[in-house]
C-alpha cells in the first residue's frame, strides 16, 4: 500500500505541479536540520580564518586592494558605457536595462545526492527571494531559484537536464537555447543546424529573451562542435563559465523591471 502511494506520488511530482505546495510546507521544518549540519562547518571555517596569520591577511588585503583598483578603473569605463547604452536604449524605447538589485547569498554546506544538480542557499522568502530569480557567481550564470522556504531556497543549476537558458553568441549574435546535459555535466545547444557558424571557443551570454535571466551575463564557452550528418542538428557542448561546483558565495539578482511591467510594455 505504501509502495503504491509512493509510486503515485512520484508520478504526480514528475508530471504535475500539485505536490509543490506540499513540498514547500514539508521542507520548512527540515530547514533547521540543514542549518544544524551547516553550522559547525561554518564555525570551523571561521576558526581557521581566525587562526590565519597577520602577515597572510595583510598580503591578502594588499592583493585585494590592487584588484579593487583594477576593477574600479574598469568600472569607470563601464559606467560611462552603461549610461550611454541606457540612453541609446531609451532612444530606441527598449525596456531591457542592465543593472538590477543584487543580494549576496551563501551556499549552505550541505550535500545532496551527487546526481542532483541543485544547491541550497541561505536566503529565503524572508529576504524577498522568489521562484524564478536568476543566480550568478563571479564568473557567470549559475541557475535559477526553483523552490523557496522561509530561510532557504533551492537553486537549479544550468547543467540540470530540466534547465534551459536562452543564450546568444558574442561573436555573431546567433541565438540558441542551452539545456543541461546529464551525462557530461556540461550544457548542450539544441536545434542548431549544421550550417550555423559556431566555433570552439565562442562565448555565449544570456540573451534576455526568456525574461527570466537578465541580458548579457556569460553562460559558457563552446568546447566541442560535432557535425554528425546522420543527425538533424549539430551537437554543440558548452562548458559553463560559472564554477558550478566550487562557488560558495553567489548573487541573487532581481532583474531591473518587474515581470508585470515588462509585460505591460510588451502589450503597449
Amino acid at each position, binding site marked *: 500500500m505504501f509502495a503504491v502511494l509512493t509510486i503515485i506520488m512520484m508520478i504526480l511530482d514528475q508530471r504535475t505541479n500539485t505536490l509543490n505546495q506540499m513540498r514547500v510546507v514539508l521542507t520548512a521544518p527540515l530547514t533547521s536540520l*540543514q542549518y544544524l549540519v551547516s553550522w559547525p562547518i561554518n564555525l570551523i571555517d571561521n576558526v581557521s580564518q581566525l587562526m590565519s596569520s597577520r602577515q597572510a591577511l595583510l598580503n591578502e588585503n594588499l592583493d585585494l586592494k590592487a584588484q579593487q583598483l583594477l576593477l574600479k578603473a574598469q568600472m569607470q569605463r563601464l559606467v560611462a558605457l552603461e549610461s550611454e547604452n541606457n540612453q541609446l536604449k531609451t532612444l530606441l524605447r527598449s525596456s531591457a536595462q542592465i543593472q538590477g538589485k543584487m543580494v549576496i547569498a551563501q551556499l549552505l554546506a550541505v550535500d545532496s545526492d551527487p546526481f542532483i544538480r541543485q544547491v541550497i542557499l541561505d536566503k529565503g522568502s524572508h529576504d524577498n527571494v522568489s521562484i524564478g530569480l536568476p543566480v550568478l557567481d563571479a564568473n557567470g550564470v549559475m541557475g535559477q531559484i526553483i523552490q523557496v522556504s522561509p530561510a532557504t531556497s533551492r537553486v537549479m543549476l544550468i547543467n540540470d537536464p530540466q534547465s534551459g537558458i536562452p543564450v546568444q553568441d558574442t561573436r555573431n549574435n546567433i541565438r540558441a537555447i542551452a539545456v543541461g546535459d546529464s551525462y557530461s555535466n556540461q550544457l548542450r545547444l539544441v536545434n542548431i543546424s549544421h550550417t550555423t557558424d559556431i566555433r570552439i571557443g565562442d562565448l555565449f551570454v544570456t540573451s534576455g529573451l526568456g525574461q527570466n535571466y537578465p541580458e548579457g551575463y556569460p553562460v559558457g564557452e563552446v568546447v566541442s562542435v560535432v557535425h554528425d550528418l546522420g543527425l538533424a542538428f549539430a551537437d554543440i557542448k558548452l562548458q559553463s563559465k560559472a564554477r558550478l561546483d566550487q562557488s560558495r558565495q553567489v548573487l541573487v539578482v532581481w532583474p531591473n523591471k518587474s515581470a508585470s511591467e515588462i509585460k505591460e510594455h510588451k502589450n503597449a
Partner: protein
Amino acid sequence: MRKWLLIFISFLLAFMLTLVPMPEWAIWFRPAWIMLVLIYWNVTSPQRVNLGAACIVGIMLDLLNGTLLGEHAFAMIVTSYFVLKMQARIKMFPLLQQTFCVWLMVFLYQLLIYCIQGFIGELPKTKWYWASSFVSMLLWPGVASILKSFKRRSRLRMAS
C-alpha cells in the same frame, strides 16, 4: 518511550551524516546511513519501525535531497519489506553473513533508485555510484555494535 527517543536520535544522526558535505573525490563513497539505521531497527524492533516508518524516513530524505518526491521512500519501503520478511533469520545470522545480507539489501536499495533515475532520465554517470553499497557493508558491523551498545545502556538505565 525511551526506545522511541533512541530511534529518533539515531535517525537524526543518520540524516546529519547524510547532509554533511564531503570532499569532491569522496561523494560517491558516502554510505547509505539512513538505510543502515533503518535495517538495524527493522531487524531489532520490527513492531516499532515498520514499513510506515520507512515511508516517512524516505520522504524526509527526498525532501532534503530535492529528489523526486517518493523516490527514496519507494526504494526504502521495498528494501524494508524484504528485511522484515527475513527479520528473524537476519537476527540469528553470524556477523559475517549479516554483513553480506546488509550489502545485498543496500545494493537492492541502490538498484531501485538507479531504476527510478533511469525512468526520469537522470542516471548517475559513473560506475562509482555502486561503491556506496560496499562502503555501507563495511560500516555495518560498526553501526550495529554502536546502536546495540546504546540500546543496552538505555535499557540498564531504565532498569535502575
